[in-house]
């Protein structure tokens, strides 16, 4: 008797729950979706439209000029220099961040005294404002009183200060170093989290079988960690491709265009050069590469979600 009264309402509620859940679902999602439409969707469409116009700062009329902005960019040698720069900047930064991040994560994954404190310290560069990281390095790079030059000159290794930020090749290296310093902890923390799920039985089995440390890393740790590595590498590539603050503050894209990346070129053309339409076209041209990265990323994440 009691059983029957209890079991009757349940199916009827089940039948009603679907549409009611859906309504509540859309309702709870509405504010966020609305914000995204207004704050991301609308500006994005504006960007695409602007890139097809001759839109200048301070002029009300913006004539439609089709693909002229794109064509003049693609014909411009500077644009291709900048594309090469951003590929070097992002490629080198991300590759080295991956290596350092992985090494530190593996080292931190072992039991040791003061592990929590060491881990907290390792996160610091990533928690700090980019601006702060850049200012500190700018000061260390300085040719007047900067610590690197002072030490090198004091030790008699160099006679004149090294121009870390005004030699074309060194400037790129210097900018990459700052990006690595600030960005490697992101790899470390995510990979450290990934390491918690790796190993286990396989790792023990390999150990019992006497596989040495290198073999265990290559055949157990690395394959287990690979999916996390792929995701964090792709995410970092997307963020590094868009970095503005580091390059802008350290070199303003100079000397010449030696360290200009797409974000600084956008700023220079759109805001400094007053050509809003053409400036936006610079960053729209980043989209094809970005789409490839996003498609790869989605694939890896879906795979992980499917497996986990």
């Amino acid at each position, binding site marked *: 008797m009691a059983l029957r009264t209890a079991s009757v309402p349940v199916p009827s509620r089940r039948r009603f729950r679907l549409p009611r859940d859906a309504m509540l679902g859309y309702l709870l999602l509405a504010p966020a979706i609305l914000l995204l439409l207004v704050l991301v969707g609308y500006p994005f469409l504006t960007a695409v439209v602007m890139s097809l116009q001759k839109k200048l700062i301070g002029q009300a009329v913006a004539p439609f000029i089709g693909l002229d902005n794109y064509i003049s960019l693609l014909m411009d040698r500077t644009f291709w220099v900048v594309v090469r720069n951003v590929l070097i900047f992002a490629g080198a930064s991300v590759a080295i961040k991956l290596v350092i991040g992985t090494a530190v994560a593996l080292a931190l994954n072992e039991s040791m005294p003061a592990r929590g404190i060491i881990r907290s310290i390792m996160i610091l560069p990533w928690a700090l404002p980019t601006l702060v990281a850049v200012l500190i390095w700018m000061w260390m790079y300085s040719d007047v009183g900067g610590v690197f030059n002072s030490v090198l000159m004091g030790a008699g290794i160099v006679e004149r200060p090294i121009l870390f930020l005004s030699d074309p090749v060194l400037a790129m290296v210097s900018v990459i170093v700052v990006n690595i310093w600030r960005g490697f902890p992101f790899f470390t923390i995510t990979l450290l989290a990934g390491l918690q799920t790796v190993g286990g039985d396989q790792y023990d089995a390999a150990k019992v079988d006497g596989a040495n440390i290198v073999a265990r890393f290559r*055949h157990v740790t690395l394959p287990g960690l690979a999916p996390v590595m792929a995701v964090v590498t792709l995410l970092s590539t997307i963020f590094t491709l868009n970095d503005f603050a580091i390059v802008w503050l350290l070199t303003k894209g100079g000397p010449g265009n030696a360290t200009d990346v797409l974000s600084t070129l956008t700023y220079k053309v759109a805001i400094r050069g007053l050509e809003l339409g053409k400036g936006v076209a610079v960053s729209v041209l980043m989209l094809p590469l970005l789409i490839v990265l996003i498609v790869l990323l989605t694939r890896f994440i879906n795979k992980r979600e499917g497996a986990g």
Partner: protein
Amino acid sequence: MSDVIRVVDARSAANTGRGSLRTELIIKRTLQWSVLVTALVIVVFPLYWMLVTAFDPPSLSYTSQISLLPKRLTFSAMAQLLREYDFLLWMWNSATVAIISTLLAVVVGTLAAYSLARLRYPGRGFLAGVFFLAYIFPATLLVVPVFVILSVLGLTDDYIGLILSYLIFTVPFCTWMLRAYLTSIPPELEEAALVDGATRVQAMLLIILPLAAPGVAAATIFAFTLSWNEYLYAFILMTDSTKMTLSPGMTKLVFGDIFLWGMIMSGATLMSLPVVLLYFVAQRFVVSGLTAGSVKG
């Protein structure tokens, strides 16, 4: 799998005995600590140098004499910074903008995340993807149109404009991170409440949200940090010195005529303080939240 075992077997034949195990442990510990010590030096030295410069500013005479240890401790550079610039005002502006945009994003993001993680309806997977896309969408592409739109509305040099542009990344970030966190809470708890006659909204407010508190805390900390640290939007949107936040304000210090590094490093120290304190106090949330948010997402 069988490959792994075969390789492992092959190696084990050549590599048995207690001696090799001990050697291996020594190699491993040496490797581990050399990596850690190197990394710690690389991480800590620049921070140390910031503090040394802030509290023992270099004289402006052009000497190559340098001491790696501070000779004295003085607040003169910091005092000069606070006297000559609106630094405290910038800090207040940064705090206002970051706190308001964080609160808005966490509320809106939590509701959206609950919806995406817990309720079933057509289009859910697609909508979740939209949030992820928005999270990684490049600010470089949005900043110019946002600048144009806000100019038309008269919202440049205005906190409202900056807060709105911070919602561009805080809302998708909070939603995405909390969705992952909420998905990890077992559905049985909520289903039990529903069977007992609770409504969906009751179950969400009384069962799920309390359990999700650590995730919400982590999302709050991250959203605040992202806003506090943000550079590009603040740099382009805020040009009035009395409305500026720390990012454009500090940039003014750097692009002046002479580089007063003592003052700049004092400013950098003060700007870092809130986020560093937040991270040390709330480390537990941060690590668990990051684990759920960025990778498993």
